[in-house]
């Protein structure tokens, strides 16, 4: 297993947000975490990213293993530097005062002088999202929401990480753009990128992922392949509109 989450308990200040999460992801998978607002989906991703409080919750019990080794003491930028995992955060967090190209360049900060890799990945990003190529020199805050989301994904790719976590990639996107985004992500998966995607839109997420976990108030209440979850009565009732 590439990533193992063992009995993970986290809190924001004194408020416990996750009450003992267990799940795992293997290389090459597309896994989704679904759940209602406030279920702990974002808290899970932020815990994995190892960002420091107050940006992320504090892990006080349990462990996160990457290739069998705990990453609890690893600094967030080290995770990226060692090409373990990249996070496309909720709200995109692109650098609006930088151009599209500069955003992509900056994401290669920790990539050690490998010009070929940088060039290839840049080509991949621009092929995947031709709109970004058109807006290469533009200040990125002038992009539309969908384009900003593309840029955020492109940035994650530029880090060289083969495991990408996405927090609500469909949020605020028009349906056409949303499908375009998921099509691009599927293509990336075929190229060997492992994906963990968090979604409120359970239907879209289950169509996209091969398997998933259902999160409810900080606990996993169901798991299985996408088909199993789609046919699960409780999941249908709570997340798929009956």
């Amino acid at each position, binding site marked *: 297993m590439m990533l193992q989450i063992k009995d993970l308990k986290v809190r924001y200040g004194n408020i416990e947000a996750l009450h003992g999460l267990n799940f795992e992801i293997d290389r090459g998978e597309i896994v989704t975490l679904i759940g209602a607002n406030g279920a702990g989906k974002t808290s899970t991703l932020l815990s994995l*990213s190892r*960002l420091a*409080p*107050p*940006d992320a919750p504090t892990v006080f019990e349990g462990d996160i293993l990457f290739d069998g080794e705990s990453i609890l003491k690893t*600094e*967030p*930028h080290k995770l*990226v*530097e060692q090409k373990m995992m*990249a*996070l496309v*955060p909720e*709200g995109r*967090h*692109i*650098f*609006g*005062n*930088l151009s599209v190209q*500069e955003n992509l*360049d*900056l*994401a290669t*900060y*920790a*990539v050690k002088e490998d010009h070929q890799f940088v060039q290839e990945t840049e080509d991949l990003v621009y092929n995947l999202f031709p709109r970004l190529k058109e807006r290469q020199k533009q200040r990125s*805050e002038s992009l539309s929401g969908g384009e*900003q989301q593309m840029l955020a994904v492109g*940035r*994650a790719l530029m*880090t060289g990480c083969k495991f990408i976590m996405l927090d609500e990639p469909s949020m605020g996107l028009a349906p056409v753009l949303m499908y375009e985004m998921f099509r691009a992500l599927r293509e990336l998966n075929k190229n060997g990128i492992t994906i963990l995607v968090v979604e409120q839109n359970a239907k879209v997420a289950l169509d996209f992922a091969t398997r998933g976990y259902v999160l409810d108030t900080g606990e996993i209440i169901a798991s299985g392949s996408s088909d199993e979850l789609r046919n699960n009565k409780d999941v249908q009732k709570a997340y798929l509109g009956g």
Partner: protein
Amino acid sequence: MFTTVLQNLFNALQWGSFYSMIALGYCLVYGVLRLINFAHGDIFMMACYFAFFIATFFLSIFLGLPGPVIFVITLFLTIMVTAGLGVFIERVAYRPLRKKGAHRLYVVITALMLGFILENGNLAVLGASSRRFPDMIDKVIISFGGVNLTNLKIIVILSSIVVFFILNLIVNKTKIGMAMRAISYDKFAIPLMGIPVNKVITFTFALGSGLAAVAGILFGMSYPVLDPYMGMIIGWKAFIAAVVGGIGDIKGAFLGGFILGFIEIIVVAFFPSSYKDLIAFVILLLILTIKPTGFFGVAKSTKI
């Protein structure tokens, strides 16, 4: 009349250069941490003292060495030592607060206290007597059309321009500079790009303090009397200059310094010199009232 104007123009450029080089330090730290580093004026003061000791030391042990060589050595060493001081201050004072998630107010108070500590530490160690900065470069007066310029004045003005261009290059063309700009927009996402936030902050303090060092050594050479409180007024003025220019932008801070230089010199040309600060600050106040973000400041729009 014309020569007086020209003469004053150069005086304004010289003072503007000092303000600008110091203002850039405020601007850099503010951009990265959203912190007004009120100790910055005193870092400038410390730079003057560092330069004083380094220059005196080299002048006394290498008697044969030409002045300009000693100047270059002093400049280089002063930049290194002052950058080290800036980084040290960040480590021992600001980083622990940041780690604990302290409110910005406490960090600003810490900056103010640090300024006092540097001033009074200097006073305690070196005593109250002011010191005379040694001469490293022989003063040459260049006259043209009735305007008298010292070579030092030209060096000061050119230095500020060179420093600004180098800084511009760093901020716009290097990855660490790009990270400095990015951090001012969105600190959260910086580690997600594989960038160590603390390294960017350390670099910023080193850079800002290095600029203060250039200003410090040149100021010491131009106005050779040093005292522990010399950084206070000039530091405050440079800070105000940075805000008037637009503190979020290095162009703004740089020009802000020159705006202040010009206003001061113009006021002195027409009014008794005791009115200088009064009128200059009234004008700056008016500028800020009309454009609160400063000349180059842009109100940052947040996008969701």
